[in-house]
């Protein structure tokens, strides 16, 4: 079958930040292969991919990705880029976390002051990372059914809307935050800890398992994305003058 | 108590619908305490005329004017029995109570009037029956009793005895004559010429949307002043 396009199951941050809107036309111009983006949560993307609904995955949840590949659903997993997580909150910073470099200390401050914190609570890559950060800080935030810790059960954007609406702290990837419009008086208050790194990978959905998968187009996409040209394009993407994603290729 | 809203004066009424002239050049005066019978073949426009006079429809041409009363008074002091009775989906009794309430009768006076209306309609035993379960004739009697209940200045009736048994016909006629004697003006549409003779003071003969002869009851019926009316009364009109 000669489809001249691929369906990309991607996480929302790369779509909402505009990165894919930047990359896809370049790729399309070069190869003639179209890219149809289905942007959903990482969990749903992996599920859809397992069912064979798509050709390529672009997600950020290392453990889940590895499991996906080891079960034979995907092949050719490549880490292509990374950005980082940040903690955002109201400007007046009731938990006093501004400029603290140690993320464990940040989370400790928030919990000890019992300042509202909104968790995505949706088992997404970001949620899993947040839980591991609480763990590092030695805190079980939802243990006492505390009212300051709220599970929003929503995507990143919706969770940010809620955090802004409630005047609460939240953990988010930087790309989504920078492209997010409803910031109110919120800003990035904590960042920079190495434990906040957020790597993204591409995976080709296994054409052996799902014969209809456009392996040719998918491979072309992966190849281009990991090539110096694709990596350069990732680095070149700017939003309001800021770089959101960093290539894995050291240049 | 305000003065009677009568006389009612209709001048050169016309009604046009779907490009058909259904009524044309109808002039008519209804005075207090009169009894007018409207005769005419099916489709002559009798029901339309009653609707216009009662204010259910706006005439296309001509005017209708009442002597006294605010528009609310006029509404309250007239009543009409439609050719096809319509009752609310409630009991017989509740229908009468509702009508009295709508006419602004004080709550304390209602129960007496309800009793009276039920007796007049011969429906005292059926007071708790759902109005829509009544037989057609019973529904018609309920309509008449409901209309009479508030003692209006003028009462329009569109073939009120069409589906009634002879005894009921007689009772309704008696009720109408009594009400008339108490001062209620009555405008009655009927196909029953002998009924017209029994109750009517004045006959208006309608044909093809026009008044085609009128006059005092016995003399007009014996000797109509129009050819069409004469043919109709002789049972010979071509419909």
């Amino acid at each position, binding site marked *: 079958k000669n489809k001249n396009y691929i369906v990309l199951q991607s996480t929302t941050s790369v779509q909402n930040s505009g990165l894919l809107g930047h990359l896809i036309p370049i790729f399309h111009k070069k190869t003639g292969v179209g890219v149809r983006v289905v942007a959903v949560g990482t969990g749903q*993307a992996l599920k859809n991919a397992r069912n064979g609904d798509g050709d390529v995955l672009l997600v950020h949840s290392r453990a889940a990705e590895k499991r996906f590949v080891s079960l034979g659903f995907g092949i050719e997993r490549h880490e292509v880029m990374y950005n980082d997580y940040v903690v955002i909150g109201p400007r007046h910073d009731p938990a006093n976390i501004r400029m603290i470099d140690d993320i464990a200390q940040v989370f400790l401050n928030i919990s000890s002051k019992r300042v509202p914190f909104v968790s995505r609570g*949706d088992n997404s890559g970001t949620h899993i990372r947040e839980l591991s950060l609480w763990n590092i800080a030695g805190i079980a935030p939802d243990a006492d059914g505390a009212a300051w810790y709220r*599970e929003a059960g929503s995507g990143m954007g*919706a969770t940010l809307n*809620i955090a802004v609406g409630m005047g609460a702290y939240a953990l988010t990837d930087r790309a989504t935050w920078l492209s997010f419009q409803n910031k109110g008086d919120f800003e990035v208050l904590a960042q920079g800890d190495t434990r906040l790194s957020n790597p993204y990978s591409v995976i080709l959905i296994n054409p052996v398992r799902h014969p209809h998968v456009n392996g040719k187009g998918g491979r072309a996409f992966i190849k281009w994305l990991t090539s110096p040209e694709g990596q350069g394009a990732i680095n070149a993407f700017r939003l309001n003058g800021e770089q959101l994603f960093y290539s894995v290729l050291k240049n | 108590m305000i003065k009677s809203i009568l006389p009612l004066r209709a001048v050169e009424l016309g009604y046009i619908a779907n490009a058909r002239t259904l009524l044309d050049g109808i002039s008519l005066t209804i005075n207090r305490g009169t009894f007018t019978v409207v005769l005419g073949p099916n489709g002559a426009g009798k029901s339309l005329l009653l609707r216009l006079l009662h*204010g259910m429809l706006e005439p296309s041409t001509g005017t209708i004017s009442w002597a006294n009363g605010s528009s609310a008074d006029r509404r309250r002091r007239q009543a009409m029995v439609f050719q096809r009775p319509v009752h609310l989906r409630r009991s017989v009794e509740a229908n009468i109570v509702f009508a009295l309430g709508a006419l602004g009768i004080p709550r304390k006076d209602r129960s007496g009037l309800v009793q009276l209306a039920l007796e007049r309609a011969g429906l005292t035993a059926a007071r708790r029956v759902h109005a829509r379960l009544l037989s057609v004739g019973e529904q018609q009697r309920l309509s008449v009793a409901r209309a009479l209940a508030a003692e209006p200045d003028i009462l329009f009736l569109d073939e009120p005895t069409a589906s009634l048994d002879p005894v009921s016909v007689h009772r309704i006629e008696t009720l109408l004559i009594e009400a008339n004697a108490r001062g209620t003006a009555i405008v009655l549409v009927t196909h029953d010429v002998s009924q017209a003779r029994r109750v009517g003071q004045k006959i208006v003969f309608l044909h093809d949307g026009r008044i085609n002869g009128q006059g005092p009851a016995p003399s007009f019926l014996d000797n109509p002043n129009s050819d069409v009316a004469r043919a109709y009364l002789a049972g010979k009109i071509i419909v």
Partner: protein
Amino acid sequence: MVREFREKPYMHDLNAAILLAAQLIYTGDADLLEIIGLSIGVSLTAVLASCVIGMLLGAAIAVLKFRGRGAVTILLNSLMGLPPVVVGLGVYLLLSRAGPLGVFGLLYTPTAMIIAQTILVMPIVAALTRQVVEDFYAEYDEQLRSLGVRGRRLVTTLLWDARYSLITVALAGFGRAIAEVGAVMIVGGNIDHLTRVMTTAIALETSKGNLALALALGIILVGVSLLVNGAVASLGRRFGRSRYD
């Protein structure tokens, strides 16, 4: 509830969902019961409010003659297509701290969800009521005008006589309320133990890729609708409806 089923082995078909639904009901999961309770509570309250406002409004439009009646009818019919997300956003802007009603602190509370659903459902109830009452009014029109019945009395009389048909209208409103997710998600926030209802829970499980669990919750939600509808039907039968009604 969430955690319990997260580790289930991979399953994605309808059978699995049905099994899961049965299992959830059987174990009588407390979280689930809480969520169901909130769903019903919020939606029933919103539908009640919608019926009070919407039926009066719809009946009034059906029977009152006024300039622009046609335009109002078209508007009302169009508002049946109000997108939940848009209603959610509108209410969010009103209730958010920066908004005009921010001082009441209603955002992310069940009250906010009720407000949003009422705005969503009211036009549906009103538009359908207008049609039903108008159809009834065709029969009563002259008789009621002849009796001098007008205004409020006219509206309430017709609503009462059309009551059996209006049950279906109310149920349509309930269906809309209980099934929508866009508005309650935005103004409620899908906060666990506070504003999480069935539909937002379903959306959450879907985004996690727990399709079977999401579907199972969906099946339970339809079951809840069935119960509510069955209750309404048996109440309706209780107060008897003959073929003449």
